[in-house]
């Protein structure tokens, strides 16, 4: 008998299709898909897959999502709940815990979703250095902050894709900002600004063991997205820093109590060669990182995440093999001047192995909506790290003409 699984999905449905292939094991699993409405891409391309049960809900109507999910779990022999989007992680865990299903439970998921609970757990376990942080539930909380130490970050405790992140340099700036935020719902935190290059570590964990982990370095600050801006990452395949990040990642995941799932951790590397924990998510990486990992290691981390949550075996590609090339990506936000793209004829000489285009990126006012709201993204390969960085620089020059 086929497994029945509830897939709680906040991605555009195209997230589950890759080069004409479905990343969902539709021949092995009867999926009950709860997805966003068409305006948010929740059903785009759905006809290509045999999904027997579909619920389409308003993207932000959490009550409707919960009602639909609970109905499905009550009425069908569903044994797995799958979530690969940050917004779905906690609702899926709540359902697993409520219905006694395997996978990440609600207590673990809360530590991955609430940036205060997350940092408390990491700090308590001594898993990593954590920037000084505090809950921000009223303007009065600002008085408890040490303003002599410089810039602070105020952000949503459950924010995603670098949305709702604010930098402030003084108490007065912070107080003005707080006047525009709804602090009553225990939804914000304040922490020390850390000046450093942000690295990410993406993992697959099963039975408490990290079976796969990859390190990359962002080429820009994810919180710095803006019209005409650029973002990207280059994978780091060797070196002492990589090993330190892998060890930090292992300590953090253990501190948060993760035994099964995929993760995306971000960490600052400061000019003083310190690693400072930023945050970690209990789901696969987003944006263009999955295609980059697929080019590098030969498997889809999104597919692995789904199969793992469905209780199926999964591939880690050639992760164990030495690499003869290194991959990364460079992406361009909508807006800005001189946008012209890269002619396909130039792709080979620039090392571009894949171009992903999102013509609908940006909002109606020309603003960038979040850190992965890319207009054009290019996966780039090179024989070594230095060449990769050089090619990404050249692509930035050529893209803007």
């Amino acid at each position, binding site marked *: 008998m086929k497994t029945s699984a509830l897939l709680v999905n906040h991605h555009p449905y195209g997230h589950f299709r890759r080069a004409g292939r479905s990343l969902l094991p539709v021949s092995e699993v009867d999926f009950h898909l709860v997805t966003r409405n*068409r305006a948010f891409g929740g059903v785009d391309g759905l006809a290509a897959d045999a999904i027997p*049960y579909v619920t389409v809900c308003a993207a932000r109507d959490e009550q409707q999502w919960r009602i639909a999910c609970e109905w499905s779990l009550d009425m069908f022999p569903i044994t797995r709940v799958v979530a690969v989007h940050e917004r779905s992680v906690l609702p899926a865990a709540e359902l697993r815990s409520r219905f006694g299903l395997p996978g990440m439970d609600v207590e673990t998921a809360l530590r991955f979703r609430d940036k205060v609970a997350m940092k408390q757990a990491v700090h308590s376990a001594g898993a990593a250095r954590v920037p000084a942080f505090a809950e921000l539930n009223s303007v009065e909380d600002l008085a408890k902050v040490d303003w002599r130490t410089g810039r602070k970050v105020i952000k949503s405790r459950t924010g995603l894709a670098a949305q709702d992140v604010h930098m402030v340099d003084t108490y007065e700036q912070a107080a003005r900002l707080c006047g525009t935020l709804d602090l009553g719902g225990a939804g914000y935190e304040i922490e020390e600004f850390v000046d450093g290059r942000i690295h990410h570590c993406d993992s697959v964990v099963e039975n408490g063991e990290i079976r796969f982990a990859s390190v990359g370095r962002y080429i820009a600050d994810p919180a710095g997205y803006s019209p005409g801006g650029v973002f990207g990452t280059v994978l780091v395949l060797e070196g002492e820093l990589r090993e330190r990040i892998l060890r930090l990642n292992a300590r953090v995941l253990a501190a948060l109590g993760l035994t099964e799932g995929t993760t995306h951790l971000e960490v600052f590397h400061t000019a003083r060669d310190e690693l400072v924990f930023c945050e970690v998510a209990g789901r696969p990486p987003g944006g263009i990182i999955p295609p980059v990992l697929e080019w590098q290691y030969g498997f889809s981390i999104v597919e692995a995440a789904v199969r793992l949550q469905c209780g199926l075996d999964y591939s880690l590609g050639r992760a164990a093999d030495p690499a003869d090339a290194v991959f990364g990506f460079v992406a361009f936000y909508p807006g800005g001047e001189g946008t012209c793209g890269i002619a396909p004829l130039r792709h080979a000489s620039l090392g571009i192995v894949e171009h992903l285009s999102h013509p609908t990126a940006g909002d109606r006012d020309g603003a960038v909506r979040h850190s992965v709201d890319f207009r054009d993204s290019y996966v780039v390969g090179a024989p070594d790290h230095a060449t990769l960085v050089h090619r990404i620089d050249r692509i930035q020059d050529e893209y803007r003409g």
Partner: protein
Amino acid sequence: MRARRLVVLGATAGVARAAHSLGCHTVFVQQPRSPVEALVHDDSHLYSVDYTAATFAEFVDRVLRSLAPDAVVSVAASGLLPAAVANSVLGLSGTGIETVRRLREGRGAVSAEGRELDVVTFVTGGSHQLLAVVERHPVTARMAPAGLPPAVAADVEEAVNGHLDEAGLRDGPARTTVTVADGEVRVHGTLTHLGDGDQPELVRRISGIDVQRWSLGWPLGVRGTDCLETGTVSGTPHEGIAR
């Protein structure tokens, strides 16, 4: 003020288009494994549910109720009774369960003698409007306007209206099958939907009314005049002047 919310059971792409034309928020309830992309608009909701199953009333109570729909309709044969069940559970107007059952189960065998006609009417608050009388061509099997003499047409209309009144149909479309032989009209039964085949188009050509749109929209207050297409027809329904 939020847009009025219409739940449609068992829609096809054409029915979905008609539903969207009403300007309301659409919610589709479809049998499992049915197409999705072809139906939904940007903000539509959709649920894959076996609406013929015994558990459908519970689905209505637990899931659809939370959406506070203004009406639940179907123009598919399989969806008529479930729609009536949903309206009953939610306390909405619409054709009642007993009326749907009575009409569905009251179809007698059609006599081989005489002319077999389909009489399409629309009932509004118990008032009947004849839209078309059509007949299947004995050779091509295609439906075409019947072209009845006025006296026969009047007898047909009277028989059909009486049958629907007796069944308790107060609102909505009706397709009643009758035979006319030796001046006698015999009613064989009624379907309270026109399906998604050729018949709605034929009725539109005869009457100038988009009966599909009216069938979906009447619980929201849509009137026949709201569904009248430009370029009106001449003639009468029973004369059946097709355009």
